[in-house]
């Protein structure tokens, strides 16, 4: 193999990655345009809201409460080294609202929702159900993809909001029960310290992560290969892609909201 083969390989890989990126972006645009135009499928949207939003609450709540509690313990222990134990409420609040809330909820949604969307749609593809939909004059983008993306766009920001609150509650519980904080003072400190920008960034991240999680699930499902192996690959690929993209988007959004 000549030395020149290496840049060639890198170039081809880059082009291929860009092509995939373009296809995903077009897919996402298509999904949004189908959400906006009739016909609408209220039953599908309702089911998607239930599956993506409501049924994700337990996992989101549990993740947030443990994380908030652990965060309080860590900040207390770390702060003690330079007599700054008192900052626990403030740091728990911005830690949860700005970063941990959106990221953890996003990753949980990638694990729970992206995988199930990808597996379901890929199975439908493999068993010709997508073809059957088309022959029954129903557009798969509208019937399958649109409702799921819409539901994720609506519910994931709400889930992030719930996660933020529960995470702060976890920190509060640990601080008041175990670390000797005054309950009322803890709450005032939390509320006074948070800015509108923190909350807006949290919800915007939620919407972005919801979009990423649902679009990746649908994209991998609709482009699944054949057979059980195709379904397995689609599911694995969708979760990997969603998780990595969520973390990357988080970095970018944090930069956008907080670098000035």
């Amino acid at each position, binding site marked *: 193999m000549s030395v020149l083969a290496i840049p060639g390989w890198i170039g081809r890989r880059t082009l291929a990655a860009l092509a995939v990126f373009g296809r995903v972006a077009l897919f996402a645009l298509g999904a949004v345009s189908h959400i906006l135009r009739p*016909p609408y*499928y209220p039953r599908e949207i309702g089911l998607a809201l239930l599956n993506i939003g409501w049924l994700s609450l337990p996992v989101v709540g549990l993740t947030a409460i443990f994380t908030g509690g652990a965060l309080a313990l860590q900040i207390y222990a770390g702060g003690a080294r330079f007599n700054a134990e008192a900052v626990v409420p403030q740091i728990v609040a911005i830690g949860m609202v700005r970063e941990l809330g959106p990221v953890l909820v996003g990753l949980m949604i990638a694990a729970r929702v992206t995988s199930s969307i990808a597996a379901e749609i890929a199975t*439908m593809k493999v*068993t*010709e*159900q997508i*073809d*059957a*939909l*088309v*022959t*029954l*004059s*129903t557009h798969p983008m509208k019937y399958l993809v649109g409702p799921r993306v819409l539901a994720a766009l609506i519910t994931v920001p709400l889930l992030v909001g719930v996660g933020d609150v529960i995470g702060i509650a976890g920190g509060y519980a640990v601080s008041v029960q175990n670390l000797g904080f005054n309950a009322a003072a803890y709450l005032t400190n939390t509320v006074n310290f948070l800015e509108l920008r923190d909350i807006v960034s949290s919800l915007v991240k939620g919407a972005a992560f919801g979009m990423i999680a649902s679009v990746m699930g649908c994209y991998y499902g609709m482009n699944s290969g054949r057979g059980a192996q195709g379904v397995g690959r689609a599911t694995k690929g969708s979760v990997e892609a969603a998780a990595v993209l969520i973390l990357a988007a988080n970095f970018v959004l944090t930069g956008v909201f907080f670098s000035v």
Partner: protein
Amino acid sequence: MIEMQDVHKAFGDNRVLQGMTLTIPKGTSLVIIGGSGTGKSVALKCILGLIQPESGRILVDGKDASKGDRDAFLARFGMLFQGGALFDSLPVWQNVAFRLLRGSLKRPQEEARQIAIEKLRRVGLKADVADRLPAELSGGMQKRVGLARAIAAEPEIIFFDEPTTGLDPIMAGVINDLIREIVTEMGATAMTITHDMTSVRAIADDVAMLHDGVIQWTGPVAQMDASGDPYLDQFIHGRAEGPIEAVR
């Protein structure tokens, strides 16, 4: 009338259709026969636009099938998929009435359900399967639900991909009669794929044999036995010896 003109389709280096040309006059029943994996299902999917052929033309009533209003085009078709392709998240009756519950053919729910139950009865299924999920049915029952779904909206053109595979001989007879009835009474145009020679004789006006990516023989079913075509003869008599290699 459906016309396929010199249609080519390959998957990678697997060349499946290599210049398939075929005409199905309106209101007639054509049966496609041919070895497993020769591309019969692919041919149906090409006409429906589920698979894009690389070259060749497909005309329905003289108009290019790939152009114009897709929804209006597809509203004329019913299709039974080889694997049934039932929606496993919906109960049987909603599968059958899928078209009648949404879109341009939408009816009140109760009416759609009655039509679904009537169609289920025509394929030999009782009303009590209506509320079950497809996964709770046997393979042959799923196939018949797929058939009921294909005919539910009384389309002008119906494709049946192996309608009797997996059915007992009596039920196969019922389905053959049903397909024949749909063509003669409703004037539908039907294209059926089958490996069952009894079905061929019961359903077909015309027969076409697909081999090596092209139509090897086509003609009225009455001439099938006296065609003199060695490929067709070998196929309809199920002989291992002949021009079609049995071991590939």
